[in-house]
């Protein structure tokens, strides 16, 4: 399945690396990636990441991403 992850996190060095590391452990390739600060006051960044993954793994992965200290919100949706 093709999924889009939307992840909000503190805008801090190393956060993308930590998230990418969680994908790498499962040998998941990133199909597309976009990062931008969306809240200047609170320094929150929004990541939009597209990946291919089987459905039963997606729910586990999103919880591991959500567990990252810097991440404030993580969700996914399926792409058509």
């Amino acid at each position, binding site marked *: 399945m093709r999924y889009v992850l939307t992840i909000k996190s503190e805008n801090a060095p*190393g956060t993308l*690396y*930590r998230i990418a*590391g969680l994908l790498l*452990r499962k040998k998941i390739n990133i199909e597309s990636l976009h990062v931008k600060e969306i809240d200047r006051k609170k320094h929150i960044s929004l990541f939009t990441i597209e990946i291919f993954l089987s459905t039963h793994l997606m729910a*586990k992965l999103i919880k591991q991403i*959500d*567990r990252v*200290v810097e991440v*404030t919100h993580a969700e996914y949706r399926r792409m058509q």
Partner: protein
Amino acid sequence: MEKISGAQALMKSLLREGVDTIFGYPGGAIMPVYDALYDYKDSIRHVLVRHEQGAAHAAEGYSRLSGKPGVCMVTSGPGATNLVTGIADAMSDSIPIVCITGQVTAAALGTDAFQEAPVIGIVTPVTKWCYQITNAAEIPHIVAKAFHIASSGRKGPVLIDITKDAQFELCEYDDSIQTITLKSRHDPHFAKKLDRAAALLNSAKRPYVLFGHGISLSKAENELVQFVEQGGFPAASTLLGLSSMPKSHPLYMGMLGMHGNYAPNKLTNKADVIFAIGMRFDDRVTGDIKKYAPQAKIIHVDIDHAELDKVITADIAIHADAKEFLAQITPLIKSRKHDEWIGQFKKLDTEEREVVVDAELYPKSGEISMAEVVRIVSEKTKGKAVIVADVGQHQMVSARYYGFENSDSFITSGGLGTMGFALPASIGAKIAGPKREVIAIIGDGSFQMNIQELGTIMQEKLSVKIIILNNRHLGMVRQWQELFFEERYSFVHMENPNFNKIADGYSIPNELVEERKDLAPALDRMLKAEGSYLLDIMVKRDENVFPMIPSGAAVDEVRLK
């Protein structure tokens, strides 16, 4: 405000966190901090290890007995990379440690400077959190944050990398305590799940409680016992759950897992309701997941919501702290007895005793067995010592046969299975628990992985007791080669040095034990000794640890021979 250096700010910040011990090793990039430490000799005990891996494991051992994060401090480059195994170990076993590494100056970062290693890049996947400090002013806040993250929620290792210029830089030390708040995830269905879990347990015919390291990490030992006593539930422990419930408790059924007890593994596939708390269904516990407890309704309680439904899909998955949850559910549990069901455990237990245990514990002839050593140690210490086991057969035998009576009494590397863990971990444990008898039980292979820490024991005058269960082999690997690789013994024999001479070199009193008649008296002398003591005990070279769930097999395919 008076200005102080970053290094001094670090000292003040560590004191504010209640740090009394640092396990460390100096070097160029951490020298300003070591210079500041010189002025804090009275309030902080610095333990000079002999290898940075030892510092990390010592910090783990310290944390296990003190309940606080252990602290280690090393230089940049090789000092930091030497920590990595210990950090990964702490990550696997959710042990809070705070690692402080020196780093080259900010200007030199990324230039392949002398002793520069990309520490943050290396440790990110094996830390709960890590951060590089390049400004002295950040230090008070980052240290507070590091300690908070290490010891809250699911605990784990954190690392702070401090550039050398930030250690020198002057800053105003802002002592106003900054409160650190981390996000928390609240389950809106918690109350409903609590009721459902209680109802399920109350209606169960064959309920079964599995507990892990989460019990000791949240100090829930009393709550666990009250809970199982209330429901009359049989309970079994994972490797790291050991000692969270006294082994002599009538509802304690034994250890789960590959080399756990017969009944606890076999009956996993007979229970109708499994209540698993503070454990994560490690593959060494579940065996083949497809054949793991298909008949049971499973309630899984864990502080880390990423553990829920990760390996085993639970019928009720509850995100909660073990201590709080047990205190909440126990009043909802009906007082019951499950004599017939517990009788099934007893029956299989007798079988294990007859086929495996008795012969191992009480051999009449031949070489000394690992099990009889552990039995005698257990008898002589009345199950009250802290056992620090390394990795291999001796670890499984220690876990199986030491009669743990007190909590926080078994320290070992579970998740990562790190050989070389025990000697340095016993150093940290003894420092955190000076009144407790700390006994390291180590294989001859594992002993040689961090043997240099004998120097730390000597210098710190630590009364650590060391037992080498010496089978002249990498026994656990040898066992697998015997059972699963057609006895093709590939590089598992070890020609060992004279461990007594080595101990002599470190001025550690020691004995060689080769015969059964000498074993008990030697253990007496070891336990009576004021300071450290080492026993090199020659045990059978080709012993196998049973029961065993062969890898890939189901829990109820556990073999007695």
